[in-house]
């Protein structure tokens, strides 16, 4: 799949933002006043910024509001509905925390659940696609949710939970890569089933339908950069999980240094997740590539 920057930015940043909103909704950290304002500003900048970025790849962004209508069947529509609901509920909760010094617990819980539901619906947009075996796995929503929770814990300063959530997210990432590498082969789809000619012999793409490229090849058959995939996986894993774990587990004296380390951990994690998301798209093989003798 073509790793469009808009979609990588969207899934990374909004995942992190809704992860932070989840913890804020649960009252972690139990901040009020100006400190709460800063926390919510960061969370909303990430979540809303990501959502806005996602509209950049649309052919007609001015019609995006129509996407709220088909929640009965479409995960993309459900994501839009969940995101707006989460942002409204958490906005009300934030008003209470920032201006009235009060935590409306029930509202916070509802907002937290909606925030996590938004991340889940995002992941289901990809998971539902049978055409991309590497995404069509239970591990895809597990990965999106665990990344969001780990990032949210890091950002919200949940010191006891963050190392555990980072470790879980890292383990799921490794499992996702291991299983994903087998996904296309074990899906049973190949040029034989694609053409229906597989039981007659070995099918080979002899001539493409056209001499140039087309939308399908540009969008679905992205092979550039796949050759560095293994190196990028190591870079992504170290930045997203190993380095942040070291940074937050290293005992340091002084609040200032601790905050600097926490900031570095967040930036490292964010960079690692961006690389992981790039791989998520770049390595995903769409079965339509088979018709062109590619994958």
């Amino acid at each position, binding site marked *: 799949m073509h790793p469009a920057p808009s979609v990588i930015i969207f899934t990374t940043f909004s995942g992190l933002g809704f992860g932070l909103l989840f913890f804020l909704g649960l009252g972690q950290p139990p901040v009020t006043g100006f400190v709460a304002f800063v926390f919510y500003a960061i969370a909303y900048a990430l979540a809303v910024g990501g959502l806005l970025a996602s509209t950049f*790849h649309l052919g*007609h962004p001015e019609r995006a509001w129509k*996407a709220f209508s088909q929640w009965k069947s*479409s995960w993309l529509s459900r994501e839009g509905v969940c995101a707006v609901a989460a942002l409204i509920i958490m906005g009300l909760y934030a008003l209470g925390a920032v201006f009235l010094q009060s935590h409306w617990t029930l509202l916070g819980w509802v907002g937290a659940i909606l925030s996590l539901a938004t991340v889940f619906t995002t992941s289901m947009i990809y998971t539902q696609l049978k055409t991309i075996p590497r995404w069509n796995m239970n591990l895809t929503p597990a990965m999106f949710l665990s990344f969001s929770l780990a990032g949210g814990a890091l950002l919200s300063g949940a010191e006891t939970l963050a190392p555990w959530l980072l470790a879980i997210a890292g383990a799921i990432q490794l499992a996702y890569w291991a299983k994903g590498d087998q996904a296309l082969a074990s899906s049973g789809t190949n*040029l034989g089933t694609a053409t229906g000619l597989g039981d*007659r012999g070995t099918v080979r793409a002899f001539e493409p339908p056209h001499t140039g490229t087309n939308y399908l090849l540009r969008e*679905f058959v992205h092979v550039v950069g796949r050759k560095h995939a293994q190196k990028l996986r190591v870079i992504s894993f170290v930045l997203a999980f190993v380095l942040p774990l070291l940074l937050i587990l290293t005992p340091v004296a002084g609040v200032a240094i601790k905050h600097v380390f926490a900031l570095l951990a967040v930036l490292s994690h964010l960079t690692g997740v961006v690389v992981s998301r790039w791989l998520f798209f770049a390595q995903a093989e769409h079965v339509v590539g088979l018709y062109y003798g590619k994958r």
Partner: protein
Amino acid sequence: MTQLPQSTERKMGLVIDLDTCVGCHACVISCKGWNTENYGAPLSDQDAYGANPSGTFLNRVHSYEVQPEQGHAQLIHFPKSCLHCEDAPCVTVCPTGASYKRVEDGIVLVNESDCIGCGLCAWSCPYGARELDQAEGVMKKCTLCVDRIYNENLPEVDRVPSCVRTCPAGARHFGDLGDPDSDVSKLVADRGGMDLMPEMGTKPVNKYLPPRPKDQVEEQIDILAPLLAPVAEESKGFLGWLDKALDKIPGGAN
């Protein structure tokens, strides 16, 4: 509305005969010609006369080589367009309701004024039947020439999809695949019509007729061949000398 209908009154679709298709691409051109100036936005081209041309097509013809374990390879031309699936994943993923499957004839269409161009329907289609038009920013797909097949301004013979009307080999057939007594259904039954990627669970309406088995190519092609066998295995005279002289030049023979 992007929920799929429980069932459709008819299942209009195409039957494509892989045995007959000669790979001339006439269907590709006639499809583009008809659909760029009729239903919906035109099918744009980018850099059409430049170094890197590309464009929107609703129908494309691939060619495949099939090499059996024994015997000769076979070349099969393979036209591919929307299969108007009964369980069309492109319809249910649409967030705006722009994609829909018609109850009356099962044709899958895009309402272009509702399409936001998110591309998710093209992602969900295993067949590459949908292409996002780069000029209009909306999704284009085969309409089964919905503006021809019911068009009473056209002579009756023309009330079939443009690709079917054009095919010089008679490799494309159009009809109701939901009616077991229709010509296309009989053709599918007779010839063992098949689905593409049945494991995807899309239940395509369009069927493909597999190529018929070819005659065995005998080792001895012509009964006169023995008489045409080379008489002299080793060349003599001037040619013999030339052969040896060329052999001596370094570089080797191929």
